[in-house]
């Protein structure tokens, strides 16, 4: 019976350990996989262009060549779209017609024509323009034909030859050609769909090289990563819709093919072209982006790395350690060496225990109310969140941990060490500094490891005291800083970035884990060295 029980116990504990390891793999595995995606991926030509333009990394000549090649491949896409647009985009065509009229008028003035002739030509031009505009906005093929015919009647007119008015006829021809293939019932629909399509293409290939409009930082380049590009292409080929079904109230997601939607129009070949030539357009190559840990990012983490975040996290963590280690050790020394057990000490101890359990957001608010708004301005600092305020808040947060572990460490130093020192004529203070503290160092280092891990990963205390999502790399401790934990939180909540560049968020999280691991490894190595020295091996 006892043997069975023993075996059962072994199996149970073994299972518990296995479960824990499995959970660890289930949680960490995908996270690390995705995080690795931030530095190891298939980068497109857009990535290399971005790297060159933003961070001046890469071979200029090679990238230029690549750019030219891909541009050639992309030109077809823009041509197809332009052709199709000519058939449906009444607004744009109207604008074009008006523009032609205006330039024609200016031309006539410059040529210094006679007054009557000028009046006549201007009137004619306006007529052509109005007919064209009518044709553009019409949905009746007969009407359109009538208007176009009216316009084309002047095509052979000598007076318009070799002037800018000749463009009227080019426009009319293109429109006539396009309108033959368009189902006019769907014209408005096409216009809307085309905008959607163009948005996706901008995300995929970057801004239209022919347009000169200024663009947002995150739209300056196309898909920098092949996985991103594939996602966008899927979006391009398949329109996602949520359909309400009558019987059930839940919406059902369906995907319809855009190629079918645009079947029979000028746009139809676009889909096949993109499908066949996507690699030519984007030229994906396997990339090891180790500069991810050094590079700054374009505002909002759309492109680039997390260098400033790593720096900020290190700053905050190490500065808070500078505050918490002396305070923690001195407090622990008081509690163990200088005070005698009594009600006061019991209350202090209770307070410390309670503090250890206070939620970190409470410390965040405390930090804002005390350090940011009162303490730092009181000494002439800025009345805004800054690294100093953040690290002080983090120090307060982890002080209980530090005090408790240091206290344990100091308590475990054999009384005989202290006695021996005192018996040699040392004062209490000298005994503490020269004998107790060195002997307690491994335990204190354990406390530092615990504090370090907690501080580096905390988000809530720096929400209001030091964190910022977009900003320059700080050059003093009186400025806000970006940190890994704050960054990944911000990406998750403030916009949809996390959905668009998930690799960045996972990259930050994994980097944070790695950073904590590295700091811990450093502290553990230090501890084992101290331990060895104490043990005399």
């Amino acid at each position, binding site marked *: 019976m006892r043997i069975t029980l023993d075996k059962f116990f072994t199996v149970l504990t073994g299972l518990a350990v296995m479960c824990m390891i499995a959970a660890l793999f289930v949680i960490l595995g995908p996270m690390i996989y995705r995080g690795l995606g931030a530095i190891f991926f298939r980068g497109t030509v857009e990535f290399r262009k971005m790297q060159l333009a933003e961070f001046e990394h890469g071979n200029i000549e090679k990238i230029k060549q690549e750019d030219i090649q891909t541009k050639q491949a992309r030109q077809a896409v823009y041509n197809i779209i332009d052709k199709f647009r000519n058939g449906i985009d009444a607004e744009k065509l109207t604008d074009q017609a008006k523009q032609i009229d205006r330039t024609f008028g200016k031309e006539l003035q410059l040529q210094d024509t006679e007054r009557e002739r000028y009046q006549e030509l201007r009137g004619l031009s306006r007529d052509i323009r109005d007919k064209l505009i009518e044709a553009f906005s019409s949905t009746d093929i007969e009407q359109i034909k009538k208007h176009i015919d009216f316009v084309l009647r002047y095509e052979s007119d000598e007076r318009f030859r070799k002037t800018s008015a000749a463009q009227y006829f080019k426009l009319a021809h293109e429109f006539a050609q396009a309108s033959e293939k368009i189902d006019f019932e769907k014209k408005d629909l096409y216009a809307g769909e085309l905008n959607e399509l163009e948005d996706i293409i901008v995300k995929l290939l970057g801004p239209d090289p022919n347009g000169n409009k200024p663009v947002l930082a995150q739209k300056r380049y196309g898909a920098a990563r092949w996985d991103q590009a594939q996602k966008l292409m899927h979006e391009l080929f398949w329109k996602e819709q949520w359909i309400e079904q009558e019987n059930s109230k839940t919406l059902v997601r369906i995907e319809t093919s855009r190629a079918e939607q645009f079947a029979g129009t000028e746009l139809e070949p676009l889909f096949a072209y993109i499908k066949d030539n996507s690699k030519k357009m984007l030229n994906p190559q396997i990339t090891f982006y180790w500069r991810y840990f050094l590079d700054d990012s374009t505002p909002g983490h759309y492109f680039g790395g997390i260098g400033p975040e790593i720096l900020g996290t290190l700053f905050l963590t190490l500065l808070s350690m500078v505050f918490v280690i002396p305070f923690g050790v001195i407090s622990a020394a008081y509690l163990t060496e200088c005070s*005698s057990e009594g009600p006061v000490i019991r209350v202090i101890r209770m307070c410390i225990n309670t503090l250890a359990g206070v939620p970190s957001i409470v410390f965040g608010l405390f930090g804002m109310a005390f350090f940011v708004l009162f303490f730092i301005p009181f000494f002439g600092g800025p009345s805004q969140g800054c690294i100093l305020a953040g690290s002080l808040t983090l120090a307060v947060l982890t002080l209980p941990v530090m005090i408790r572990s240091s206290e344990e460490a100091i308590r475990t130093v*054999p*009384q*005989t*060490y*202290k*006695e*021996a*020192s*005192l*018996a*040699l*004529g*040392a*004062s209490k203070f*000298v005994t503490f500094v*020269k*004998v107790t503290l*060195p*002997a307690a160092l491994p335990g204190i280092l354990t406390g530092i490891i615990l504090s370090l891990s907690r501080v580096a990963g905390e988000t809530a205390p720096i929400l209001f005291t030091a964190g910022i999502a977009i900003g320059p790399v700080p050059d003093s401790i009186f400025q806000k800083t970006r940190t890994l934990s704050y960054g990944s939180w911000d990406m998750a909540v403030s916009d949809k970035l996390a959905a668009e560049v998930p690799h960045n968020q996972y990259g930050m999280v994994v980097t944070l884990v790695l950073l904590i691991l590295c700091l811990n490894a450093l502290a553990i190595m230090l501890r084992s060295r101290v331990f060895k*020295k*104490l*043990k*005399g*091996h």
Partner: protein
Amino acid sequence: MPKRNNNDMVISVVKSIKDKYDTSELEMIDMEKIEQTEPYNSTLPEKSLSIIKADDFSFYYGSKAGVKNISMEIYPFMVTAIIGPSGCGKSTFLRSINRINDLIPNIHVEGKLFVNNQDIYSRQINLVNLRQQVGMVFQKPNPFPKSIFDNVAYGPRLQGIKKRSVLQQTVEESLQSAALWDEVKDDLKKSALALSGGQQQRLCIARALSTRPKVLLMDEPCSALDPIATSKIEDLIETLKNDYTIVIVTHNMQQAARVSEMAAFFCLGELIEYDLTTKIFSNPSNKQTEDYVTGRFG
């Protein structure tokens, strides 16, 4: 009461070594404090040959007495053993001689305890000076987790000696006095914790000697050691008594008989008998002592 006052033998022993001993060397009184308070002379006892003198001395842990009404004199350059059953207060008494018991909260003393004619429980006493004059070796070897050199140099460094050559010399002399020099002279940088138990205890003795104390208190120094290490320590005590006054607490009566010249028997916090060791072990005047040394009690 012990019969020490009438014991001619003791007096003769003490007189024979009197010329080695100069009380004026001892300066444990904090001069600054004296200037502020009234002259100290009034409490000084008549000069005697003893180096340690307990005068109706009692020591209390809270309300419980550790030792009570002890009156005895300990003579210089002799080994004085304190024996008795467990819990009889012999360690308490020993530890009050250099006031290491002060670490324990809620203690108080009654009566007087003189070391070199100075009341060590008076306010004027400078604990640092006292402890440098009264060294101590503990039951368990307790070297600091530092190198051998740093262990021995700890005391001199506390006194403000920084010069490497002076420290080196002090360390060497102390280690030689503790008969450890030959064994460790080649690796003074080694951690003290790497030494064997017996070596560690001798290191502790060297450390205690490094401050050049007058008195060496030993609290069961051999109880954690094997017989070979024990015999080495005993030999060491034998040589040390030429230069130091040694008070040793021991459970081992053979050891007390082997190493000590004077012996005091404590029981239940009281001093039962104090006499020459030979007398205590061969012809004790008290029944309790006789029972104890012959093994019938305790």
